[in-house]
């Protein structure tokens, strides 16, 4: 069977603008696959979906839909094959779910009432049948839109951020149904998603788009890692999932960081099979969230509290047990100054590798010089790195 979609050199430009919003995409979506399109706002995701829908015409390059050029197909031919769920819900629509669902067939006489009953029954939402859409919760209204699309019996289902406005429970409910229908009917699903965890969990394949180009297409673990995402979602944190690479565990490493300065470094260490610990971090800090998400051992302090003596000692234990200490470039105030006090213990840290960010810390020093003094001491004994590439070289030599 030809692929559901095959794009080669697909490009699109808004009327009157100089730059392409979509700039030469090549991808294949196989029939029966469950694909999500991810990327930052303005990357061109919705435009791409509109082109795939046939709504935006006049693209350059080629886009085949089951082997036929999409632009050569009529609205009716397309309608027989694919269904669509828009980003917006049907706000304030005073039609009952049943009346609304009847519209799914443009010829209402052909819509059989039993068919609607059946699918509502199957999805356990028969109670919505006579309720007005306007009176439904966001989650319920979304499910009704999903039923609308399913009633079209599509081979392909396109969804534009279907769950962006839903709470966690309703997101799950929506995707569980979608997944089930996908599996049972073999519908090809292509959805724009903002929640990368959902994308990773439900989709077999992810297309990562940035600036109108495909950065990467493949299974979630290949696409959703710090390397690809870090460059796209600047400063995004807490969702990067990293796995140790193949091979034997290497040594223990302790990372001193905060405010997101440690994410990439820790991810890189995990991938290289180091056993990583981290601290002291205030609970809620973005590095703290990242460590928790990746089960990194850490010394935690209550949110917004200065580091206690007890936690300082704990952290020192970790440092002593590690073969290397890494100091990232993070802002230092009175509260977390204790993180640098290990410099006083350098005698006992002798022989240990110390790797420190090489930047000028004066703009990150909110202690009136105390932090800088510690850093002087640390840097004297440390190997310095200016960027992540240099850091990579340093740890490969460990």
């Amino acid at each position, binding site marked *: 069977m030809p692929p559901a979609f095959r794009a080669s050199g697909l490009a699109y430009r808004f009327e009157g603008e100089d730059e392409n919003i979509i700039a030469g995409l090549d991808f294949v979506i196989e029939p029966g696959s469950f694909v999500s399109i991810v990327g930052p706002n303005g990357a061109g995701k919705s435009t791409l979906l509109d082109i795939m829908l046939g*709504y935006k015409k006049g693209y350059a390059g080629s886009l085949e839909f089951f082997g036929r050029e999409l632009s050569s197909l009529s609205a009716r031919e397309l309608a027989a094959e694919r269904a*669509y769920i828009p980003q917006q819900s049907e706000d304030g629509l*005073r039609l009952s779910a049943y009346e609304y669902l009847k519209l799914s067939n443009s010829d209402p006489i052909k819509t059989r009432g039993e068919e609607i009953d059946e699918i509502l029954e199957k999805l356990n939402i028969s109670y919505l049948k006579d309720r007005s859409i306007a009176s439904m919760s966001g989650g319920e209204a979304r499910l009704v*839109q999903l039923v609308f699309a399913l009633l079209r019996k599509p081979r392909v289902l396109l969804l534009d951020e279907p769950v962006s406005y839903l709470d966690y429970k309703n997101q799950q409910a929506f995707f569980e149904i979608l997944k089930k229908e996908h599996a049972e009917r073999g519908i090809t699903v292509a959805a724009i998603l903002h929640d990368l965890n959902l994308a990773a969990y439900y989709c077999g394949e992810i297309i990562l788009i940035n600036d109108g180009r495909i950065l990467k297409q493949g299974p979630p673990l290949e696409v959703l890692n710090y390397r690809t995402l870090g460059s796209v979602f600047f400063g995004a944190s807490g969702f990067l999932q990293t796995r140790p690479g193949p091979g034997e565990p290497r040594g223990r490493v302790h990372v001193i960081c905060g405010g997101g300065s440690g994410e990439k470094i820790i991810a890189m260490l995990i991938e290289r099979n180091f056993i990583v610990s981290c601290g002291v971090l205030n609970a809620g800090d973005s590095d703290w969230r990242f460590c928790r998400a990746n089960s990194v051992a850490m010394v935690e302090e209550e949110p917004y509290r200065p580091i206690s003596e007890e936690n300082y000692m704990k952290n020192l234990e970790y440092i002593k047990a590690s073969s290397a200490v890494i100091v990232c470039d993070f802002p230092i105030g009175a509260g977390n100054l204790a993180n640098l006090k290990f410099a006083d213990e350098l005698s006992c840290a002798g022989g240990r590798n110390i790797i420190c960010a090489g930047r000028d810390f004066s703009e990150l020093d909110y202690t009136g010089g105390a932090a800088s003094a510690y850093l002087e001491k640390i840097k004297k004994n440390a190997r310095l790195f200016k960027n992540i590439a240099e850091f990579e070289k340093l740890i490969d030599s460990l």
Partner: protein
Amino acid sequence: MTVFLLGAAGVALSFSLGQAAIPPGEIADFLMLRSLADGRYHAILKMRVLRIAAAFIAGAGLAFSGVVYQSSLKNYLADPFMLGISAGAALFSALAITMKFHSSLAISAFAFTGAILSVGAVMAISYARKFSSYNLILTGIALNSFFSSFLTVVMYLSKDMQNIFFWLMGSLDVRYADQIIYTHLFVIFAACYILKYSHILDLLRINEKTVFSIGVDQDYYKIKFLVIASLMCALIVSQTGIIGFIGLIVPHAARIMVGDSHRLLLPFSFILGGTMLIYCDLISRTAADSINFPIGIITSLVGAPFFIFLLAGRRKAGERANG
């Protein structure tokens, strides 16, 4: 159901009340086509039949086309006069009056031409650019205000200012039975035709891309519906002058009462609009002795409080639903 009963009561009251009150027995006789005991009433009753028929079809047609306009333009503030029908009709009838055409048929013909020309111009202009509800409405607003200014100029220069003014306020004094019969035929036929497509009107209300995805050509239907509703409306306006408010308020009231499903909403608005105008006419004839208030004033005077009452009720219902 209640509206039906109200409508019937309105018709009965309209028959009997007016500058000369007529006893119910005489009306029954008249309706049964029995010869009348008292010949005096015959002429008055004949006049009132025409009047009631005119009020009903004008109200019904305006309300019906109001619904069609709102749904086709995807704008709940739309009314049948949004795309220039009233302004065009007003300007052309003013011209006719100024040019000393005295027969009401001639003025009607002028008004109809003006209405069709202006709504046609609005559609053509916005179709030449990108056809969208947004473009249509903006073009309509521009043309409306252009025609209104033109009208002011004509009125300022004309010696028949009072006549023009009177026409603008709307009137249900219809002299010719033929006119009313043809208007009825056309309006009812057009309404039935659109009713056949009520599910498409439902579709126009929902997400545009969703509708596209099921293969319905929305622009085609939008144009078709707007053209039919405009013809309907132009015909009514050309006979009665400009009766405001019905085409905006009745559709909203009907939506509140029966919901957005056009299969119900369209006929309901039709009947509600007709009924409402019969009542407004009744008030305009009976409120003060020996004066017929212009119907356009009464629709606003009666319609606005009625609508505010409905809105207040809905807010309470909304609070209950949310709470």
